[in-house]
């Protein structure tokens, strides 16, 4: 997506989203769904950078979201810090845990690394469930306050109301989205892409593969932490169920569905993942069977997800007599 057209498109999309509560003020349920989707989209961006751009599979990523979530929850619940500092604290602690995990584990061969991420996710979730004195155990931490209303002069944004919190979530998402964009467009992002395509080439050209993997793993964990903090502020409660293994698998699905390695993939995947079942209103198990089937089909026939399919379609429609045709 090198065309400035794409940038304009994204900005237009963001503008539309911001205007949504004003255009359709009565659609509170849709707003609720979109806010929840944004809470998933943020950690999905982290996973997208890790998996889609660098090629590292992490099956326990919601564990890091949980670390950020509980950190922020504890700070806000006990009145120790406001929303933004808590969010930042959540990101830092989650990032630190990511760094600690990555240091010994990123040197392992890929199969082993995947197994470790699985184990880390399970261990973190066990800790959330059992360190009652800190995390409230299986019941979690209820009663997380929403941020204080923001006085913009022209209007006051009340974050306890759906519209207000939607704008907050959208802003957090936009910030993380911008960060994703900067990373992908930078030389750092180019090195990550090289690592994904061929680690041997990357190293032979001077890339310190381990350091790069560690850096992106830490950033990715921190982003997940932000997402976790946002989610528990939205739900007003932190509970282990939000960060269990199944949620980590859902996150993988969101990234794959939207399109791994595409900037908008996480948002599209999250919206579809959250919104579609609500629209379909089928029983929970059937919904999951369908999702599982979609995942298998995506792996087999559309590994680049919806964005990938769209990109291929656009390419086919706009390119006439391309180099591809001459050199298949």
């Amino acid at each position, binding site marked *: 997506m090198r065309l400035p057209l794409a940038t304009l498109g994204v900005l237009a999309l963001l503008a539309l989203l911001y205007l949504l509560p004003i255009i359709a003020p009565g659609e509170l349920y849709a707003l609720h769904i979109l806010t929840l989707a944004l809470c998933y989209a943020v950690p999905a961006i982290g996973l997208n950078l890790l*998996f889609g751009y660098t*090629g590292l*599979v992490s*099956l326990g990523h919601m564990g890091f979201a949980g670390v950020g979530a509980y950190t922020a929850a504890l700070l806000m619940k006990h009145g120790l810090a406001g929303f933004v500092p808590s969010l930042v604290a959540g990101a830092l602690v989650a990032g630190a845990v990511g760094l600690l995990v990555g240091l*010994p*584990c990123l*040197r*392992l*061969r*890929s*199969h*082993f690394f*995947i*197994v*470790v991420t*699985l*184990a*880390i996710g*399970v*261990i973190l979730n*066990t*800790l959330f*469930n*059992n360190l009652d004195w800190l995390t409230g155990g299986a019941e979690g931490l209820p009663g997380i306050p929403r941020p204080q209303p923001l006085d913009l002069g022209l209007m006051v944004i009340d974050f306890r109301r759906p519209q207000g919190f939607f704008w907050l979530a959208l802003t957090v998402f936009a910030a993380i989205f911008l960060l994703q964009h900067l990373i992908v467009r930078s030389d750092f992002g180019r090195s990550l892409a090289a690592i994904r395509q061929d680690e041997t080439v990357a190293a032979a050209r001077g890339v310190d593969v381990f350091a790069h993997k560690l850096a992106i793993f830490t950033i990715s964990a921190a982003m997940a932490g932000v997402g976790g903090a946002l989610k528990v502020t939205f739900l007003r409660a932190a509970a282990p169920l939000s960060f269990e*293994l199944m949620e980590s*698998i859902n996150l*993988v*699905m969101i990234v*794959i569905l939207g399109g791994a390695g595409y900037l908008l993939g996480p948002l599209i995947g999250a919206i579809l993942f959250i919104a579609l079942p609500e629209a379909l209103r089928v*029983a929970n*198990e*059937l919904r*999951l*069977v369908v*999702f*599982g*089937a*979609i*995942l*298998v*089909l*995506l*792996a*087999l026939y559309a*590994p680049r997800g919806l964005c990938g399919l769209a990109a291929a379609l656009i390419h086919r429609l706009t390119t006439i007599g391309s180099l591809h045709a001459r050199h298949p």
Partner: protein
Amino acid sequence: MLTALIEQVINGTMIGAIYVLVALGMVLIFGVMQVLNLAHGVLFMLGGYLCHFAFFKLTGSYPASIALAMLVLAVLAMALERAVFRPLRDSMQMQIVASLGLILVLQNSVVAIWGPNALQMRIPTAEAIVRLGPLSFTQQHVIIIGAVAATVTLLYLFLTRSRLGTAMRATSQNADAARVVGIDTNRIFLLTFAIAGALAALGGALLGPLFLIFPQMGDLPLLKALTAIVLGGMGSVPGAVIGGLAIGIVESVSTLFIPTDFRDTVVFGLLILTLLIRPWGLFGVRVRGEA
């Protein structure tokens, strides 16, 4: 204290034997095809459900139900290999993604058909008591340990004495070389999955009567089996056996010292420790370039 220890060692051997069955299937698939089949836990779970179904709805015979479950799962596993894993041979990431999808499909289909609640399978062997001094176990304990011992022996004989088994070992060492000498590696891959599926089914069918049969029953055994094969060495069959038993015993014995809630954490801590100190496991092959 000593009696409690012996009791847990025997319990641990029993549950370890179950882990061995799951681990064997996974290590065979990984050794022969370098595929990490995360869907193995749901195959184990399906074994339990199919055995239950066969026992209560078809035959009244436990052995026949086990056999039926093993057969069905062998066929299912082959179908998965052909339809899902073979086309994805070149992309490990997509194989993982597909495995996750399979877990969702199979686990939730079971919930849709049988409901979310656990099933019970009360059979005589699970009720009958066997006494060993002051300790008592069910007959099922004995049957499990015996059945797994027999299975491991049969598998060993198959791999070392039969033509197909030797072909499997050859393929696991070097698939290209195996093809050159005329081995149909596609058939070997199907066979590997079939055996793995049957072993998983056996595990589920044996464990079902002892505890409960529920949709998530394969989740933890999957992770324990993964730990076992990492501990034993990713391509090593004897490693899987020793790893599985070791995990079972460590896990059971640890409940004497720490709260049961943290039992699984102990096992995964062991996994991570192994990966950090000795990633090629006890019997694995150290790959050039690994620390």
